[in-house]
């Protein structure tokens, strides 16, 4: 017994010694405060992570875009949240030839990777081909493009059909340029079978091989991502020596963090949460996320939804200002499917107008009496803080006033996506977030295209509009934006879609942050922050 007690005491003393010894090495700095960077400033950002990978070839999530935008340069990019024009990045200039079937990019000879080696056209060709051949989420971005090098500083991209939107696709961080030699040495390949042979993703989740202003120090899809300034960056040095991106699942916690000044930026507050905050800077603006409804045009799915008079009644029967109140400060009505922040969008004067009398007249004209509508939508998800459940409840209220008998059918995202993709939903409430900030991304709403088919709208039923969409896709030059506007007016007049609103994006930061701006593509632009 004594022996046992003595043994236990010895063990206790050992553990105590370990604890005391370790605590004894505590330095004077408070442990609860943020560790000081060795030099320069540290920026801490709270974000509810949507993050799978840091490998540009696989990446297609918002948090991943934020990270990769800081790590990797692209051929061209956007400046300061202006998505209507591209500016040089790795390419000092580009030429569009052969009716936008051919693009020539001239690389900046000063550009170099974080290891000091120059960025060459071979790196560009290899990186972009790898992204396509990995057959991941972003592969569609450059599908159909043939990418070749014409000398060490020239890249040529050609396609069989005109692709005037290409310059607006290339700022996507998924098209970030990797250091070929470094990544290939860690299992990367751009071969046609890259989807099964490329093994570089794990390495790229621990290291970066780009030419951007930051390099990857540590990466976790669940806790934090740490970036440090690239000492070999070929552009102006970034303002922060260290950027810590923290995964914070709760907006209320982000709010308290930024208000107390513990962390500098909160990316996930919605407009209702930023009210009453003081001592911080709040940036509200319209996001490129468009909330829309559709009434299925296929009579086999619903004879009610496919009735053009019903579709008009719905369009006039929605109180758009009520939805804007719900979405909060910064949200705007979407005059067409293309959000107002992109080139080719319609002006605010084209907004659909709420007119209950007209809505009731169109419903009466349909001869359907008080038809029943079942509105399907994904439940328990939000877009920039706007709950689909709340938006659907408002729609139900408005359409009941018109004379419809609306039943809400909330479904889990996975279930709702199944019927949505199959084109079997009679009435749907969804949103479209941009794959890339160009009007061509919205041709999916044309009859016979991806979203058009989901709304039961085939090219056989609307051949003239399908042809119009094809022509718009090939339009280049100064008439391009006007062509997209005309296309949207046609969609509004004859299509089964009812564009509703663009939700508000909000970014909140401490007073000391310069150039703070919400960014619809990569949440916040680390390159511009000061």
């Amino acid at each position, binding site marked *: 017994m004594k022996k046992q007690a003595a043994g236990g005491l010895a063990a206790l003393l050992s553990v105590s010694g*370990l*604890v005391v*010894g*370790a*605590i004894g*090495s*505590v*330095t004077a700095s408070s*442990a*609860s*405060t*943020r*560790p000081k*960077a060795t030099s320069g400033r*540290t920026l*801490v950002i709270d974000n509810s992570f949507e993050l*799978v*990978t840091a490998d540009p070839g*696989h990446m*297609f999530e918002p948090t991943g875009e934020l990270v990769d935008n800081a790590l990797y340069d692209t051929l061209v990019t956007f400046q300061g949240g202006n998505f209507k024009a591209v500016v040089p990045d790795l390419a000092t200039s580009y030429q569009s030839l052969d009716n936008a079937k051919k693009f020539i990019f001239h690389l900046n000879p000063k550009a170099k990777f974080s290891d000091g080696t120059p960025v060459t056209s071979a790196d560009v060709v290899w990186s972009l081909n790898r992204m396509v051949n990995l*057959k*991941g*989420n*972003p*592969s*569609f971005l450059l*599908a159909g493009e043939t990418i070749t090098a014409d000398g060490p500083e020239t890249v040529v991209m050609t396609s069989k059909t005109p692709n005037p939107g290409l310059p607006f696709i290339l700022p996507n961080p998924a098209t970030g340029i990797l250091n070929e030699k470094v990544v290939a040495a860690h299992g990367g390949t751009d071969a046609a079978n890259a*989807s*099964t042979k490329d093994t570089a*993703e*794990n390495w790229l989740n621990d290291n970066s091989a780009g030419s951007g202003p930051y390099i990857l120090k*540590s990466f*976790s*899809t*669940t*806790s*934090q991502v*740490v970036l440090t300034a690239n000492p070999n960056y070929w552009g102006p040095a970034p303002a922060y020596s260290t950027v*810590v991106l*923290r*995964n*914070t*699942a*709760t907006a209320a*916690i982000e709010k*308290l*963090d930024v*208000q*107390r000044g*513990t*962390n500098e930026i909160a990316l996930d507050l919605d407009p209702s949460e930023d009210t009453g905050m003081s001592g911080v800077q709040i940036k509200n603006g319209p996001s490129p996320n468009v909330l829309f409804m559709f009434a299925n045009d296929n009579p086999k799915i619903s004879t009610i939804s496919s009735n053009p008079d019903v579709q008009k009644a719905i369009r006039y029967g929605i109180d758009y200002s009520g939805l804007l109140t719900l979405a909060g400060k910064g949200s705007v009505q979407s005059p067409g499917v293309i959000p107002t922040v992109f080139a080719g969008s319609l002006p605010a004067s084209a907004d659909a107008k709420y007119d209950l009398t007209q809505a009731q007249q169109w419903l009466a004209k349909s001869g359907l009496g008080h038809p029943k509508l079942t509105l399907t939508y994904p439940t328990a998800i939000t877009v920039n803080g706007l709950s689909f459940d709340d938006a659907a409840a408002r729609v139900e209220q408005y359409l009941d006033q018109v004379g419809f008998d609306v039943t809400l059918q909330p479904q*889990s*995202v*996975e*279930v709702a*996506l*199944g019927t949505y*993709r199959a084109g079997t939903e009679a009435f749907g409430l969804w949103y479209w977030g941009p*794959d890339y900030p160009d009007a061509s991304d919205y041709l999916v709403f044309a009859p016979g295209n*991806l979203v058009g088919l989901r709304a039961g709208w085939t090219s056989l039923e609307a051949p003239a509009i399908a042809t119009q969409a094809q022509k718009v896709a090939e339009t280049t030059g100064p008439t391009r934006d006007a062509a997209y506007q005309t296309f949207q007016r046609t969609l509004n007049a004859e299509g089964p879609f009812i564009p509703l609103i663009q939700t508000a994006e909000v970014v909140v930061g401490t007073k000391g942050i310069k150039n703070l701006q919400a960014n619809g593509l990569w949440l916040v632009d680390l390159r511009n922050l000061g």
Partner: protein
Amino acid sequence: MNRTRARRVTPAGLGRFLARRLGIGVVLIFGITLVAFVLTHVVPGDPATANLGQRALGDPAIVKAFDHEYGLDKPVVEQYFIYLWKLLHGNLGVSEQSHRAVLTDLSQYVPATFELAIFAIIFSIIVGVGLGVVAAIRRGKPIDAGLRIFSLLGVSMPTFWVALFAFYLFFFRLGWLPSGGRLSPGLTPPTKITGFYTIDSLLHGQGSMFVNALEHLILPAFVLGIFTVGTVLRFTRAAVLEVINNDYVRTARAKGLSEWTVIRRHVMRPALLPIATVAGLAFGSLLSGTVFVEQIYSWQGIGEYAYTSAINLDLPAIMGVSIVVAIIYIIVNLLVDLSYSVLDPRIELR
């Protein structure tokens, strides 16, 4: 476990007991893999839809590559047997959401939750048993009434509310404790030995790291433990009341022993059996029920991993989590049963 008036546990008896329980455990785990596999296949939804973007879904080649990569292009029964075969070789597959081996993910998340749950259960047992004894000794007095109300509040207050309130008070208002996460932003975790940041930092002699990890642990462990405190308090009070008026306790008092000695030696020992049972059950539920606390305190543990796996229909991750939770329950139940024979030598393990 069988309770009889029997002899002390012999090494051979203990060996037989452990072997039998191990065998049952293995069967249980395979049963759970089957249930989890069937459930994840009968729920509506498609992993490709949950994990691929809208445009990628429109490209059959990309969907095919995804299905091929995760073995979803094979018949369901074949998928299950392939999974079992890999499981027997220690391979839990690759997560569709993180693109990493599920084993790698679990080796990161399980220790995080374990560290939190162990601190929470230690806090719960110390506070719950202590207050339960006080409530029993002062039965019918105001302090007993107060503790019963406290216990009721502990078990009835929603965890997410307590978590948010505690965060607001102790971090935002008072500034006594740090914000969420396991460490302050930018700190690199200690090199992994156990996965417990507190222990690993000590083993590496990183004192400031240890203090930092401990500070981050206090609030979530307190919130997670507050529910269990209420439960343990109620069970302890009831267990102590059951034995405190027995003849042998009166005899002990009549012998002139101090009240503390009477409680410690003659009351607590028999009362510990039901307390051990409830503590074991509580530990299991702590481990599998941490999702709210983990979300609010940005504590990247198995609760949050299970949640994101479920909403993304990440089959390999769901299976991995199910197996880990099953193993934890089996081990905790085993430890509770073993503790019976330690607490009461009359109990034989068979």
